[in-house]
């Protein structure tokens, strides 16, 4: 099976931004994503945002350019306002044309 290299971006975010984060992912060029639920702790207080529901963990396999665009968008619109954390890792996928 031939594979190609792509970026996996994983975003953990407080519940209220789920909808708009997904809209922004798509606007940046992501063609697919998966969303799960997590709880956790970070710089923001632990239970403070839990009233609005569990955090979302969104992951999306994308090209380098799209990954970069998403990170830029997060930095511009999210990092300073919301409890959002993100990381990139390099992955191999089959059917490279789909991502």
């Amino acid at each position, binding site marked *: 099976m031939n594979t190609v290299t792509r970026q996996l971006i994983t975003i953990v975010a407080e519940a209220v931004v789920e909808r708009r984060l997904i809209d922004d992912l798509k606007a940046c060029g992501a063609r697919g994503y998966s969303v799960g639920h997590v709880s956790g702790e970070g710089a923001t207080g632990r239970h403070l945002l839990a*009233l609005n529901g569990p955090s979302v963990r969104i992951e999306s396999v994308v090209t380098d350019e799209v990954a970069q665009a998403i990170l830029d968008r997060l930095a511009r619109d999210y990092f300073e*306002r*919301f409890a959002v954390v993100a990381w990139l890792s390099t992955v191999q996928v089959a059917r490279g044309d789909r991502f």
Partner: protein
Amino acid sequence: MDGAAIVDNLLSPPVLAFVVSLLAALLRFDLRLPEALYPILSSYLLLAIGLKGGRALADSGLADAWAPLLAAAGLGVVTPLVAFVLLRALGRIGRTDAAGIAAHYGSVSAVTFTVIVATLDSRGTAHEGYMAGLLAVLEVVGIVVAISLARDSSTRFGRAVGEVVRGRSISFLLGGIVIGWMAGGERLAPVDPVFTGLFTGALVLFLVEMGALAAERLRDVRTAGWRLAVLAVAIPLLNGTVGALVGAAIGLSTGGTAILATLAASASYIAAPAAVRIALPKASPGLYVTASLGITFPFNLVVGIPLYIALAEALT
């Protein structure tokens, strides 16, 4: 009102469940409901309240409801302003944070509403059927007013309002009202075992969870400061009095007046936190959630409700 009324209120199963659960949480007992039950109970309670209201409307008609609806909208404007001014002047709280907190006092707590209705029902005190509709109106107006006070360029105002209006709590409430109103009393009989019979028991379960949530917030009171703690009692007392006066002025029954007072006094901790988070992300949840859920909610449940009833009895 005398001490007996407070004790009586305290020993009613829903309030007792809340207090026991709050104490248990402070003692670190694990009296948390299974995660999945919380949203189930809250949807159920809203739908049941709506059905009850809609059914009462089907009997009585909407003719008398216009004045109360307008009054509710008015309270939705006045109560967050009262809160905002007090928070700024006496609480020494910044504009954005004050607006964020005020939004919670402008909006309402559906659970507090539910407890007062259950209390009145258990005493046999009648009240108007359309009060559930007022709940829906107040839930929205107060948030909108308060957010307007502090919006800046980054505020996604329309989005926040849209999300509140079409959000789960308004939807279930209105859905219930429409179904109850169209079906009417007789056709609803087969669903009574669920929507009437289980009501108080479900409320008890829900308050078991609320006790644990309030206990968590109560722990943050120290960080939030004593000024906010005092205001989180003063604001509901003031707004509750305004609500009772308005209710009596527009000719509501004793029960209806007590409910309107409770609505005005109560602070939202479901719709408002989400809306404020979206519209005013820079307002600190450590302040607004602590005030509304950690102090005002327990205060209203244990002391406020018997007080507002006594006030309504005095005024009507």
